[in-house]
């Protein structure tokens, strides 16, 4: 030992000497290089996500396991019994559970497995917490979202439902569903975290998912209510009224002069008290107008980028009675128009458990099938667009932490949420204040309601009475619910439609909120728009006004409803077709591009130009001649119609809007209007104006809304056709300006990753056809449309068809990311396989089987 010790010691001394003196390169340089390499990699890893992303064990490469489609088994805590999940050959998940709680748990797990990032983003968006994921740039959005009251309402909704669960059957159903669903999502979060397969964007952004709770499910419902029923038209109306006074009622008529079909009736003379109320607008003072402009700008923050862009509500629903179908039983067609995104807003499933057997589409973060069918009934939804989008504005006086009501001071209610104080008066949250005045918003989305419970009950309804009863608690968003079973068709638009007290100021504008004017009740449920088995043998409810002028309650003005041309085209089609089959109806829904407005207006336009000696007009007349009013991609007449209409819109309205100070002084808050719902890039749609313009064309006069009232409609039309031809020929001198060169659909990635957009893809249609959500031109293709098309065959629901433009997975690398887009574009609906048991699937119809077992079983 001593010798050895001496030897080692002397070697060390030699080495030390080498270090100090000779410093052999192979003793010093290699470790220095080694240290440099390690330090460099550590530094790169700390300042970029590169090292964590490329980590072979925890990094993105592990996400390749998420793309595997094969039979799989998971052992999960919280499940009571085994659950079979069949992914059919089209990628749709069919979940077979032995209890409702296991069913919703499994839905949460399976949906999160495919869409976790989307679910989490929707939850944050609803709760006004986007900046926790995406940083400072979302602070404005979060602040506005918090101010609207949506996060507070989501918390209160869940608290109410949970507290009432033992006393109220619907709340009990909701409570079970939401708790189980949240547990399922969280089980997937834990599973994927433990197995290093958290969705790619979590890894790339260095984020950790948060655990889901039922409050987030209610927040998603609030978000949908905002998407569908949250508007600033009351503010806009007040601002316009402050500029032109009573002329507002001509520019924005209470009732459309061209609509004739109201699915729930009440045609005839306008109700006189409704007309009086509509024409008694509160005149805001300069301070209120100033606040109005500020608030309109705030509304522009909603929605943020990480959500399908809000599009003009533009949905379609048709139900046809058995005596007009080829099957002898009713057929129901649904086509909810929403902003497109990849992943899509919808996730397609069949949910089966004792007492539940429903098929359809669910939202990210909510376990209820929104649109679908069960073995007995089918249903679909469109937006009513009624009553100023359920958003009412009042001017109130405030003083410090109090507000005046009937000249008495009351303390503000202060909610602390998301690090903010949100002040509420008795009417709602204060949205903006200036000195002693404030604009307060009374939004129907802020009312407590267990609307999720209503949807869950619909899923298990077997007849009209149960269906209608389930909807009796529905408050918002305002929706038309079309219904069909084997023998009957119906439609109902349930909601909390306010009735106002006091001096009956126009509720479609800002109202005084000093004590006499407030929401004192709602339209009784038996008086909300509805119809059962109409004599027409069909029902069309495509965002047009549901009830005619004789309806005894104030129900909104032309600013919020669709212009109704789609509905009229659909009614026209149904009036002229009998013995309709499922496939005829699907072809009509996706491939019929007839523009009803063109059908009405072009003959009139032709009468103005056909006798002209001007060669350009003669050429235009030749193009229009023989056109079938179909907005086909190959049609040049379609392009000519679109641009003629837009130029005419501009020639009629723009000089007037400049004259009254709308443009340029107020175009930042009111927008620059263009025709067909704002179909030109960077413009805004006003349904009232589209209604007006068709009315002017048909009646031959645009007075008083032309700068020079001596200008005849003939002169305006001739000028517009000439302008349209010049415009089109300047782009396509050969004259080959087919509609497909201007129009097509774009499917943007939900998270703003433009590399994973799909499209634009040419397709026929325009704003007035079923399949559109406005926007046109090379840089502004429609990014919305019928987000789920479904035709249910009530003679045998297993022979129903449908498709949505997207795919079941949120991962662009997945084969299921956008695989339905081409089917949707081509109108190729997929069979909606409806099987009572997992064993009913033939092997040809199965893509994979997933077994979910209770952990430890």
């Amino acid at each position: 030992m001593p010798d050895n010790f001496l030897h080692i010691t002397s070697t060390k001394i030699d080495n030390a000497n080498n270090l100090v003196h000779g410093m052999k390169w192979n003793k010093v340089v290699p470790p220095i290089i080694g240290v440099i390499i390690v330090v460099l990699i550590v530094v790169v890893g700390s300042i970029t996500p590169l090292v964590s992303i490329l980590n072979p064990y925890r990094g993105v490469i592990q996400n390749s396991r998420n793309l595997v489609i094969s039979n799989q088994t998971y052992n999960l805590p919280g499940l009571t019994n085994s659950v079979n999940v069949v992914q059919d050959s089209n990628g749709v998940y069919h979940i077979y559970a032995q209890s409702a709680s296991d069913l919703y748990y499994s839905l949460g797990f399976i949906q999160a497995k495919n869409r976790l990032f989307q679910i989490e983003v929707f939850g944050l968006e609803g709760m006004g917490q986007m900046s926790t994921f995406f940083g400072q740039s979302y602070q404005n959005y979060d602040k506005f979202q918090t101010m609207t009251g949506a996060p507070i309402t989501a918390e209160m909704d869940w608290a109410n439902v949970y507290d009432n669960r033992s006393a109220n059957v619907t709340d009990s159903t909701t409570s079970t569903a939401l708790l189980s669903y949240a547990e399922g999502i969280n089980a997937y979060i834990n599973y994927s975290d433990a197995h290093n397969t958290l969705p790619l964007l979590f890894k790339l952004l260095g984020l950790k998912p948060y655990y889901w709770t039922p409050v987030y499910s209610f927040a998603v419902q609030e978000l949908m209510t905002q998407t569908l029923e949250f508007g600033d038209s009351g503010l806009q109306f007040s601002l316009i009224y402050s500029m032109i006074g009573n002329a507002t009622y001509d520019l924005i008529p209470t009732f459309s002069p061209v609509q004739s079909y109201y699915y729930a009736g009440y045609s005839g003379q306008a109700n006189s008290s409704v007309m009086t109320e509509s024409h008694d607008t509160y005149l805001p003072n300069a301070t209120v107008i100033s606040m109005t402009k500020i608030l309109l700008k705030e509304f522009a923050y909603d929605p943020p980028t990480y959500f399908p862009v809000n599009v003009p509500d533009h949905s379609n629903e048709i139900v046809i009675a058995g005596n007009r179908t080829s099957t002898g039983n009713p057929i129901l067609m649904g086509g909810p128009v929403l902003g497109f995104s990849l992943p899509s807003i919808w996730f397609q499933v069949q949910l089966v458990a004792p007492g539940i057997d429903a098929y359809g589409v669910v939202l990210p973060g909510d376990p209820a099938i929104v649109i679908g069918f069960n073995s007995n009934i089918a249903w679909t939804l469109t937006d009513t667009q009624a009553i100023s989008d359920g958003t009412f504005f009042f001017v109130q006086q405030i003083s410090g932490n109090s507000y005046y009501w009937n000249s008495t001071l009351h303390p503000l209610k202060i909610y602390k949420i998301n690090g903010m104080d949100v002040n509420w008066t008795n009417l709602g949250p204060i949205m903006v204040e200036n000195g002693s005045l404030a604009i307060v918003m009374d939004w129907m989305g802020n009312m407590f309601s267990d609307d999720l419970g209503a949807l869950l009950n619909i899923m298990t309804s077997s007849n009209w009475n149960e269906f209608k009863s389930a909807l009796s608690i529905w408050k918002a968003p305002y929706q038309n619910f079309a219904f069909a079973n084997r023998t009957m068709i119906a439609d109902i638009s349930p909601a909390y439609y306010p009735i106002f007290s006091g001096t009956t100021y126009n509720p479609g504008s800002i109202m005084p909120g000093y004590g006499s004017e407030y929401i004192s009740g709602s339209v009784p449920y038996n008086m909300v728009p509805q119809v059962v088995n109409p004599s027409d043998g069909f029902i069309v409810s495509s965002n047009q006004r549901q009830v005619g002028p004789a309806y005894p309650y104030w129900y909104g003005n032309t600013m919020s409803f669709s212009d109704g041309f789609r509905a009229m085209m659909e009614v026209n089609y149904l009036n002229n077709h009998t013995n309709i089959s499922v496939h005829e109806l699907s072809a009509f829904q996706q491939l019929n591009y007839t523009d009803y407005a063109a059908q009405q207006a072009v003959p009139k336009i032709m009468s103005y130009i056909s006798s002209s000696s001007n060669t350009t007009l003669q050429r235009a007349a030749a193009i229009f001649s023989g056109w079938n009013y179909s907005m086909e991609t190959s049609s040049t007449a379609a392009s000519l119609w679109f641009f003629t209409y837009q130029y005419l819109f501009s020639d009629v309205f723009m000089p007037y809007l400049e004259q009254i100070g709308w443009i340029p002084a107020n175009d930042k808050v009111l927008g620059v209007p263009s025709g067909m719902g704002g179909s030109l890039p960077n413009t805004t749609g006003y349904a009232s104006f589209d209604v007006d313009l068709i009315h002017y064309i048909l009646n031959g006069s645009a007075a008083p809304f032309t700068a020079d009232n001596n200008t005849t409609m003939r002169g305006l039309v001739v000028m517009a056709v000439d302008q349209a031809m010049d415009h089109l020929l300047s782009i396509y001198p050969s004259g080959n300006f087919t509609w497909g060169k201007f129009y097509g659909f774009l499917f943007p990635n939900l998270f703003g990753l433009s590399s994973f957009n799909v499209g634009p893809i040419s397709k026929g249609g325009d704003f007035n056809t079923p399949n559109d959500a406005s926007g046109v031109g090379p840089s502004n293709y429609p990014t919305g449309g019928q987000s789920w098309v479904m035709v249910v065959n009530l003679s045998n629901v297993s022979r129903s068809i449908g498709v949505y433009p997207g795919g079941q997975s949120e991962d662009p690398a997945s084969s299921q990311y956008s695989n339905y887009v081409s089917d949707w574009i081509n109108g190729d609906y997929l069979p909606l396989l409806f099987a009572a048991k997992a064993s009913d699937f033939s092997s040809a119809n199965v893509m994979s089987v997933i077994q979910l077992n209770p952990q430890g079983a």
Partner: protein
Amino acid sequence: MSVFNRNQYIAFVCSLIIATVLGFLLLLTGIWYLIAFAGFAAAIMVQKRISVIFLSTFIAGLLVSLIYVILLPVSNEVAIMNEVATLAGFPSALLWVLMFLVSALLSSAGALIAASLIPFFDKPGSQASG
């Protein structure tokens, strides 16, 4: 390998196996940097010429990444890496190269660092023979 004698060849293989197995196990912790310890340990244990241990631990690092890659569905990995490359604005091949290179460099860097300590653990003649 012709530049190596038999002892060096055996040392190369031993170092390769040690660094690969250890690297694979250490990466199971999820901390990629720990692969450097695999190279370090292999170098300390084998104590051969620096070129031998550098090369063996470098290849071991590559193998560690390769093992993780081949344990996963390869076609899906390509799709995922293409997706990340699209987002990052890099060529996909660069990401693959980096994933292998980082493992290899960490492993061999550990071995290089160990080289400075080998004399303190040196057995008589081991450096000379190396």
